[in-house]
């Protein structure tokens, strides 16, 4: 009995985990070297050994190295030892990267074969804020819901710098890779099976690939899979005023929200209500700056209280044609500026004016960002402004998704 208790105690003790596995975790530093032409940044994250030479981390930890290899260098810090590292493979949509580190690691992790049960204790290891190795205990809460991508929900406080570190179960097997947090102990992990896939690819490869080409390949592949899933069934519908509107995709249960908005004007001349669906399958291209893969769907219903139709349309149309979008992004380095056009057409008994904007990624071929807005001109007392934003989609897929979106709009006379 006493022996069993001591085993139980030992297995849940964070200090034990730290003592046993701490030296299998390293700090990954991507250091900006002096270059007047590039805004070189230093990114610090964590990584863990998967075998004697290979270290796993997040793509967003090493992304600077991919975009500007000449003005950045990679360094792995293991305790007080500085080790040289070389990037071997990346998987931006799953935010993973594998680094080859010089020398031989004293010990390494193994990947868990399957997800733990809900409520299981997990321990995340990493280097928060560059202040030394730390451990965070928390619980496993299954797959994250309302998300385009597959992520594990870890209830525990991940902090900046812990990105790329391992999250292990009581047996010391890696369940996932620390990747993001939404604050208040809500944190996300990349499932271990993606690590396995990438690790196997590294084992099979002869030499490191062209990384910017690899980014394009993986992003194209991931949007292809996503589009097929989204198009597999007709869109969900919602009703706003006298319009039936697309409300999301059955294949993905994304976070949706609807209700009156506080945008209404102080003079109480018209009312606004909205509906929106956010799919932030965000592939981080550059931490805190550049993302791709998001899908945003929005509707705004403007109802006149004591406003003529001309005024109502004007108010609703304010900003309609302007190039204001949710994802700003850096036009100098990453994106071209938006190109837009306009067209009036009829659809489902509704008369619509649509505005389509598009921009290219300067560093990624084959995918683009799109914003499609449509405004109805059916009822002089009410109008709907609908919007579909697609980030990082191919031309063919974007057209299909947009077509599906527009077809789901109809006016009930």
């Amino acid at each position, binding site marked *: 009995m006493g022996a069993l208790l001591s085993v139980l105690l030992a297995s849940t003790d964070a200090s034990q985990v730290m003592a046993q596995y701490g030296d299998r975790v390293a700090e990954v530093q991507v250091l900006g070297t002096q270059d007047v032409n590039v805004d070189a940044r230093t990114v610090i994250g964590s990584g863990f050994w998967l075998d004697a030479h290979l270290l796993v981390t997040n793509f967003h930890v090493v992304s600077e190295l991919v975009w500007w290899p000449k003005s950045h260098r990679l360094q792995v810090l293991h305790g007080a030892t500085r080790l040289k590292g070389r990037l071997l493979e990346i998987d931006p949509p799953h935010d993973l990267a594998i680094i080859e580190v010089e020398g031989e690691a004293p010990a390494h992790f193994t990947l868990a074969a399957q997800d733990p049960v809900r409520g299981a204790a997990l321990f995340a290891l990493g280097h928060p804020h560059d202040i030394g190795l730390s451990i965070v205990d928390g619980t496993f809460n299954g797959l994250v819901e309302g998300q385009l991508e597959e992520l594990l929900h870890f209830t525990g406080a991940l902090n900046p710098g812990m990105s790329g570190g391992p999250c292990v179960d009581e047996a010391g097997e890696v369940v996932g890779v620390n990747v993001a947090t939404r604050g208040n102990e809500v944190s996300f992990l990349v499932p271990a099976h993606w690590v396995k896939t990438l690790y196997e690819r590294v084992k099979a490869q002869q030499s490191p690939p062209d990384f910017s080409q690899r980014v394009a390949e993986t992003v194209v592949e991931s949007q292809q899979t996503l589009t097929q899933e989204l198009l597999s069934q007709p869109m969900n519908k919602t009703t706003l005023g006298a319009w039936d509107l697309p409300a999301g995709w059955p294949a993905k249960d994304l976070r949706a929200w609807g209700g009156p908005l506080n945008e209404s004007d102080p003079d109480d001349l018209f009312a606004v209500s909205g509906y929106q669906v956010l799919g932030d399958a965000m592939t981080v291209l550059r931490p805190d700056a550049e993302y791709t893969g998001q899908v945003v769907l929005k509707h705004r219903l403007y109802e006149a209280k004591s406003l003529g139709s*001309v*005024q109502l*349309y*004007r108010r609703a*149309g*304010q900003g*309609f*044609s*302007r*190039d204001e979008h949710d994802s700003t992004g850096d036009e100098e380095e990453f994106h*071209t*500026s938006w*190109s*837009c*056009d*306009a*067209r*009036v*057409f*009829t*659809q489902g008994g509704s*008369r*619509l*004016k*649509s*505005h*389509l*904007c*598009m*921009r*290219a*990624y*300067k560093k990624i071929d084959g995918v*683009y960002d*799109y914003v499609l807005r449509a405004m109805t*001109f059916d009822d002089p007392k009410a109008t709907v402004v609908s919007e579909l934003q697609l980030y990082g989609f191919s*031309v063919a897929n*974007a*057209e299909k998704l*947009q*077509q599906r979106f*527009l077809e789901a709009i109809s006016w009930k006379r």
Partner: protein
Amino acid sequence: MVEVLSRFGLVRSRHRLSQFPATLGRAPSCDVILDEADVSAVHARVVRNADGSLTLEDNGSANGVRFQRRKTPSVPLGVRTDVRLGSAHVRFVSLTEPVAKTQLFRVSRLDRWPAVFAGLVAFVTSELFLDVYLKATRVRASEVMESLLGLTIVLVGGWAFVWSLASRVTHGRSKVVGHLAAGFFALAGVNWAGVLPPYLSSMLRLPPMPSSVLRAVLMIAVLAWLVFQNLSRVVSWSRRRLLVTVGTLALIGMAFGFTAQFASDSRYSTGLPLTDVQGPPALLLGPAPPDADLGHRIAALQKEVDAAKAEH
């Protein structure tokens, strides 16, 4: 009777020949004076033959007499004979023929229509220029500022050219300077009309509504002034008629402007206040095709952004 025609085939002047032989040429002593550099002093003579018919004879001129595109020493004159003395276009019309009257009527109608026609052409073409200008400047305010000088030259130059052409048709004189000046002042005026009211209203803390109305009215006034200035050089209408025409145009423009404004056509959102009142008829008035045409639009936009990417 002799009609001297302009380059565009319009009658510039008419002369009745009463004495024969009659002379045509550059010299003041001639019966019909042709004010062209390549017309000789006494270029040709009209002589009466024994049977009463008339013949035009070359008087040993430097550039000769051409009839039906051929140089000839003499041309027998019929009911209606077109000849060229150098570059001067001269038409001989027999007064004994009764058709002359209907001919005269037709000619005088012709004289009036080109003014309207030229005005229309000028209006449409300048609208076209404006359209190109607005499309070119759609992207962002900073780019507009950068290219403002070049665009001003193109815009005002194009505007003046078209109106000058109209003037040339109707009066035979281009009046380039007048049209250029009108275009330039109007463009400056439109910009000031767009900027001043919001600026003043923010300085005086006025509500936005009167300032936007004032801005719209000011701009319409400037544009009306512009049309008035140009039109008065092209047509020879009375002042009253001119004012009525321009006033009507201004009212139509205002209606178009406001409809365009509420339709807020993206192609006309330059960020410049100019667009708030200027614009073609609202999109809503036109027929709407039954599909969004996404394929073509994406392809066109893709071309645009790929070009921007390649530039990088």
